[in-house]
């Protein structure tokens, strides 16, 4: 049963990712796109965790953790870029 549930959640996440992509492509504004990308980062964490579950392996945890950290930094950086142009000033 659990495998089926995992697959179902996989499907949900995949749909979520595609929705994010849609927003990313659609825009219309840059903040919209950044938001979409940020969400995509977070949703991919879910995806990776699910992979881990599916394979019964804890090896993928770090990847998820890193996405969480790096996704944040890159979102912040892009915002800063749009606000100030200069990320590191």
């Amino acid at each position: 049963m659990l495998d089926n549930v995992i697959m179902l959640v996989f499907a949900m996440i995949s749909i979520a990712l595609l929705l994010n992509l849609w927003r990313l492509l659609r825009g219309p504004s840059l903040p919209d796109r950044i938001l979409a990308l940020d969400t995509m980062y977070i949703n991919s964490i879910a995806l990776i965790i699910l992979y881990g579950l599916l394979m019964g392996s804890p090896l993928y945890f770090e990847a998820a953790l890193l996405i969480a950290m790096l996704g944040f930094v890159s979102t912040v950086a892009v915002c800063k870029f749009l606000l100030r142009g200069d990320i590191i000033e």
Partner: protein
Amino acid sequence: MQHWMEWAIAFFLLLGGSFVLIGSIGLTRMPDFFMRLHGPTKATTLGMGGILLGSIFFFSLTGDVSIHELLITIFLLITAPISAHMLIKTALHHKLTAISKTRGLDKIPPAQVKAHDRNV
């Protein structure tokens, strides 16, 4: 693995998945940027929490105790509001239009810009 445990895991996963999905639906569905922001910021965070809890249970039951997924949750809890804050700042800076029925637009500070940046 006990049956009820499996149910619990399934519950958390499904809960998480649903919230993740709802967050993304919000992202697509809401009419302006400010409203779109709410879904991902909140729903996704909780959704992630759900999935991570599912994962914690899963690994804790199959093998050693696995609670490091908590870290991701904590991390997201700390960062998500800041991301949202930075995004909304950017949106305000870009003068994105909110839908017309939004109230309190006057509370948004006037353009915080001068002709040239001379603050240093």
